[in-house]
């Protein structure tokens, strides 16, 4: 069935293609070869590019991946320099649930093939980068992804054409001068340009990308490292034991990932230098703006730190020893010592150079300059049909969630693919439809196993779309929640009767570089305090109407979404197991019931039978189960528990209470609130 659907979709596309190509061939300047057309072009065969290729392949789309290296994942052949990945490879969780296990697998890409899980490639908790290269190679090969290796795209331009899906084609030119025409361009090139700060003397500075990784080369040296990210600390960690001391310099304070809950901040695995600094060894951390600095080299080839300001004052050509140093005025200046080496570990930037201006691909705001600017749907703000995937797409959730890392962007790539399927192939966002009596269970299931929600908290959220009269609902997974207002066009589903958004969140004031995340009484145990939960926990928003774009944009500060009609927090759980009947499920049901103004309890068939003959209407569970001859019969031992709990009545003894002298049997069964009363009051007046 899948095959035939694909075939049908291909037909008209082929036609369109010939029309589009025809004028180009006749009128355009004669080229060495006609541009080869593809619906989807993916730039880069790194994790994100391969992930997108996988989804396009599964959907039977016309696509190609362009990769300048001969094999996938070229970034990982070189980086990290010290070869240890800091993304965890947790091979055991004690659970069989594959989806749940992905919550703790930060390296695997998504696929249907269980052999393509990273745990089969490395046994190390922090695996070697070489294993990642091997893994990505296998992923591309085993799934038969269309990757054009050794193809460097040197230039990307736009070709306006009203016939095209987006009003234009993307023209990609490779190193051989061959052109490729694409309807949709998916840029997954990552961050490839080392970040360099320009200051006097920057030419003396070695870069992370080329510095020696052999500790012997640093024996007995004074080392200054510029930067305070994971690469800086990784470099320091490697040479910590052989140097005289290491000083680290950067503009901002150190951000520890266990305080910020952001995996891009300094990970504990790299922070050995913090330990020695705070334990009064010679290593140390300093804060200063790099652009104010200058490095001068003395006659012995040692490096001194001074201020750019002093350099401008003095004579440029003068001898290094003549230049004013801060310690001349200020004899206790911290960096008055001379360094043997200065190493720059300042991260990478997106390579904007290959994109023609007409694509209007610009860099992000103040805090995400290194990333291209995209919408929450990962589509470029400048040109329709251009999507940025993978690490380069991190501007959406920089310093918030995991969108810059494999364990995050594998889900955002899937979201982009679903968007494209709806936009260009009329394949609505996948959803399952259920009767309303399944609502609580559907949510409980997802918050307990979904890995996309868990990894991409605050970015991807599940959506429950209510049907008319709230008798049924549709469940959509992992929708980019900042696009909520455009939900109908993006998903092709209707949200006319209200919706729930299921998100995962940390406590509002819990995360931050300066926060104490180990304070006493940091976890919440009471269900009524659930809203004050600090650790990642599910939050459910209820909206009567789909929020508008304005509402999403101008939402209250620190809110992930516009103010809802009602909100529910499922209390944080030490085991991230939100299946406790009273602690987790019951409050959730009460919340859903009050939003929908209905009774979502489940009932045994006998209760439904009683209701069917004593009420004009039935609770949804009975309507959707019992009345369709799918009532829950129950067993004798369950019935006994029910009678003990007072929720069920022992009807065999009803009306005989004088014989057995029992009290409370008649008053025991009060399950349905209003209807019983109403029945009584009817009776009285007759």
């Amino acid at each position, binding site marked *: 069935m899948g095959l035939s659907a694909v075939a049908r979709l291909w037909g008209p596309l082929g036609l369109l293609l010939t029309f589009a190509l025809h004028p180009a061939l006749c009128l355009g300047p004669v080229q060495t070869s006609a541009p080869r057309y593809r619906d989807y072009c993916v730039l880069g065969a790194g994790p994100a590019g391969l992930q997108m290729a996988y989804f396009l392949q599964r959907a039977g789309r016309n696509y190609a991946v362009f990769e300048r290296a001969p094999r996938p994942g070229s970034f990982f052949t070189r980086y990290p320099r010290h070869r240890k990945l800091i993304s965890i490879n947790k091979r055991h969780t004690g659970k069989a649930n594959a989806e749940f296990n992905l919550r703790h697998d930060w390296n695997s890409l998504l696929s249907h093939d269980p052999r393509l899980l990273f745990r089969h490639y490395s046994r190390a908790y922090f695996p070697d980068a070489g294993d990642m290269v091997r893994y990505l190679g296998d992923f591309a090969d085993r799934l038969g992804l269309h990757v054009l290796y050794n193809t460097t795209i040197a230039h990307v331009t736009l070709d306006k054409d009203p016939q095209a899906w987006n009003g234009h084609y993307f023209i990609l030119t490779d190193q051989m001068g061959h052109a490729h025409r694409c309807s949709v361009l998916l840029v997954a090139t990552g961050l490839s340009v080392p970040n360099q700060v320009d200051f006097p003397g920057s030419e003396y500075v070695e870069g992370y990308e080329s510095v020696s990784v052999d500790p012997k080369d640093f024996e007995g040296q004074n080392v200054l490292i510029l930067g305070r990210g994971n690469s800086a600390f990784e470099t320091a960690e490697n040479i910590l034991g052989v140097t005289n001391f290491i000083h680290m310099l950067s503009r901002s304070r150190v951000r520890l990932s266990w305080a910020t809950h952001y995996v891009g901040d300094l990970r504990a695995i790299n922070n050995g230098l913090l330990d020695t600094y705070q334990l009064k060894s010679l290593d140390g951390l300093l804060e200063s703006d790099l652009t104010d600095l200058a490095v001068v080299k003395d006659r012995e080839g040692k490096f001194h730190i001074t201020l750019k300001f002093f350099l401008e004052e003095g004579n440029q050509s003068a001898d290094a020893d003549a230049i004013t140093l801060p310690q001349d005025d200020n004899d206790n200046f911290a960096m008055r010592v001379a360094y043997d080496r200065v190493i720059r570990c300042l991260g990478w930037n997106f390579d904007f150079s290959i994109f023609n201006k007409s694509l209007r691909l610009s860099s992000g705001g103040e805090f995400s300059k290194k990333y291209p600017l995209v919408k929450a749907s990962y589509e470029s703000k400048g040109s329709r049909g251009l999507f940025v995937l993978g690490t380069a797409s991190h501007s959406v959730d920089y310093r918030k969630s995991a969108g810059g890392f494999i364990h995050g962007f594998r889900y955002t790539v899937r979201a982009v693919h679903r968007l494209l399927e709806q936009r260009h192939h009329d394949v609505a966002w996948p959803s399952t439809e259920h009767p309303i009596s399944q609502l609580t269970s559907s949510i409980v299931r997802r918050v307990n196993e979904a890995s996309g929600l868990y990894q991409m908290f605050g970015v991807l959220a599940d959506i429950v779309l209510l049907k008319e009269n709230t008798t049924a609902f549709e469940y959509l997974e992992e929708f980019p929640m900042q696009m909520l207002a455009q939900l109908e066009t993006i998903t092709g589903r209707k949200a006319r009767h209200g919706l729930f958004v299921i998100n995962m969140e940390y406590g509002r004031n819990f995360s931050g570089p300066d926060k104490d995340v180990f304070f006493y009484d940091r976890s919440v145990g009471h269900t009524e305090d659930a809203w004050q939960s600090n650790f990642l926990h599910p939050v459910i928003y209820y909206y009567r109407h789909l929020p508008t774009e304005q509402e999403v944009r101008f939402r209250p500060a620190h809110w992930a979404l516009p103010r809802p009609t009602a909100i529910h927090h499922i209390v944080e759980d030490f085991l991230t197991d939100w299946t406790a009947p009273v602690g987790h499920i019951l409050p959730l049901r009460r919340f859903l019931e009050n939003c929908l103004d209905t009774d979502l309890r489940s009932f045994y068939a006998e209760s439904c039978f009683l209701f069917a003959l004593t009420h004009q209407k039935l609770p949804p569970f009975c309507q959707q189960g019992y009345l369709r001859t799918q009532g829950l019969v129950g067993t004798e031992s369950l019935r006994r528990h029910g009678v003990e709990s007072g*929720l069920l009545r022992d009807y065999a003894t009803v009306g005989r209470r004088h014989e057995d002298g029992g009290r409370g049997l008649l008053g025991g069964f009060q399950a349905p609130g209003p209807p019983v009363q109403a029945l009584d009051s009817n009776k009285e007046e007759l």
Partner: protein
Amino acid sequence: MMSSSFNKFRVGISFVMMSIFYKSAVDSLSELSPQKYFSTLQPGKASLAYFCQADSPRTSIFLEELNEAVKPLQDYGISVAKVNCVKEETSRYCGKEKDLMKAYLFRGNILLREFPTDTLFDVNAIVAHVLFALLFNEVKYITTLEDLQNIENALKGKANIAFSYVRAIGTPEHRAVMEAAFVYGTTYKFFLTTETALLESIGTEDIENAHLYFFHCKQVLDLTEQCRRTLMEWPLTTLNIHRFIKTMEAPLVTEVAEDPQQVSTAHLQLGLPLVFIVSQQATYEADRRTAEWAAWRLLGKAGVLLLLRDSLEADIPQHANVVFRRAEEGVPVEFLVLHDVDLIISRVESNMHDEEIQEDEDEDMESPDMDIQDDEVAETVYRDRKRRLPLELTVELTEETFNETVVASDSIVLFYAGWQAVSMAFLQSYIDLAIKLKGTSTMLLTRVNCADWSDLCAKQNVTEFPVVKMYKEGKNPVSYTGMLGTEDLLKFIQLNRISCPVNITSVQEAEEYLSGELYKDLISYSSVLVLGLFSPNMTTAKEDFTEAGNYLKGCVITGIYSEEDVLILSNKYAATLPALLLARHKEGKIESIPLANSHAQDIVQIITNALLETFPEITVENLPIYLRLQKPLLILFSDGSINPQCKKAILTLVKEKHLDSLTPCWLNLKNTPVGRGILQAYFNTLPPLPLLVVVSLHSGGQVFAFPSDQAITEQNLLLWLKKLEAGLESHITILPAGEWKPPLPAYDFLSMMDAAGSQQPTRREALCTKEMDAQENDKKHEDKSASRKEPIETLRIKHWNRSNWFKEGEKSFRHDNKEL
């Protein structure tokens, strides 16, 4: 606002009482000698005297209570005295021993009653007992239903009755009733009981609390008619009883022709809302009836007025047919469009409910405990969690073993989730089934816990739990759609042992099949045996039948016969080919149905209809099938097996097609004990059986009972049904039509967050440096522990809306109101 109207009212009633009764300025307990005491007694005036030995310490608590009773009793013209028995003046009322002191009630100098001090345990008991003794003519104590019925009959057309139940004599409720009787005892007949059985017999399950009913007997002229009853729904206090009786006295429906905002009636003064039914000349009669009907149902809850639009100057929206006015001053009237009396009632009741909620908030009362499980399935499964099930009787499948298992053997797979109560409840039935089938079935019973193997479940298209599927012979799996219980699943498994339709190859085999011989062991699972008869060349008809048989696999046995000699069978059973033979082996009947041009769906329909019995015993399992017919049910309730005469009468009527518009059925309380719960809902008590009722579930919800004094015979039944059809019978009850609302409110985290948020900014302004920020952190943690002590905000979504944020939300709320 509720309390303010109470205050107003309190002033009112005390004024009433003061003016009616003689009052005395003395309110402390006078101490007298016996001689002095007897000299003060005035003819006709009541007096309570406690005779005690001088300075007995044991009586001090009683004396305190007695002292407190002085004032209230004086309000009723009863004087109270402590009489000190001194040695020189012996009186016969002075006890011989210190601990046998008693209180005595006199009228004039005649002794009415003596009370041991322990019956007068507190001030309420003192007032209650004294008034009870004085009002022995006005307030009768009764113990049996018979008493009550006799009284009711005797008073029909004469007087109205105030009947109350109190848990014991001397309680505060008893006192309240007695005080009310003191005021109203001459107007209404008061009756009192402490018998729970009597209370139950008039239909209340709540025997914990005191109740007061008002029986409207005065207007009853036909002695066979019952007096209407109104239950007072407020707690029994003197004020409430007064308020209640005042509303009983008020005219049922008042006609007005003025601005609803200006109208004033007793109800408003008593703090009750008003409901105006908007009427006009053309529809006056009908509106009047509606208003009266509503008024009866709202008696004691709201005043009902008929507002004549034609003679009205005030502006009422054209579409509005009901005007609702709250009792509180300054609240604008609401114009509503309600097309059903029930909606009016629920509007008033929800208003009362709102008020209750608000009162709760004001008084910071304990909110209902939302953390107590009220889901019967979840609770029973939870309570059973420690029992070990013999799960090993079923095969647990995993992602690795699933495919090979279902391919290798015919399997039933239960897909469930370990955390989901409904599927865990069903797992128990499934294990029971495994126990039953142990070693006998060719079908492998397996299960998949989708909490572990979610990918596997998704691949098998299982996204809800529980789901049962049958994997057989490598064919597409079949989903089980029957009741989630041992019996029905067993039937499904057993009937799936044979392939349906079964190919029958000889006339002799066909006869064996029809007689039930062929599938003797399966016959109990299929009440009907179906045999399709076709000539060998009827290919399409055969295909359709085969498809239908396949579809019905697991719920009925079907067979097919299309040999050359099929005419032998078609002749024997007078069937024109293609045809269906339906063999009901229980009744030994075989009928034939022609099948010309019937498609598979039609055949399925024919067979499903044939499975329905004409007069079935209704059970928990089969009710849904009969409800699909959408007809009113005619149910014969029977304690044990059915009375043959009744059965015969109904079957005759069925045969004569008199019951075509109904679904006749009977219910055996022995097999279906929950039937008692149904009877209780219809009759409040368990009536004598057998008993026949008509329940129109799908049209109005009325329940009619066949008169219990008539024998269930064809003639009587037919006559009754005719009257019923003509609308001449009145229903005994109407089934509540209300939607199923949330049983309890939810935590309102949004307003908790708002409350926390509104405190924060002020603090933040004062802080700017980083060190201060750290302090702020600490403070916040303190706040957290403090906020736990605050009352938990639990409001329904309506209220969430009120603390509005978007105008949008507000708008839609108003809109909602109108829809009500």
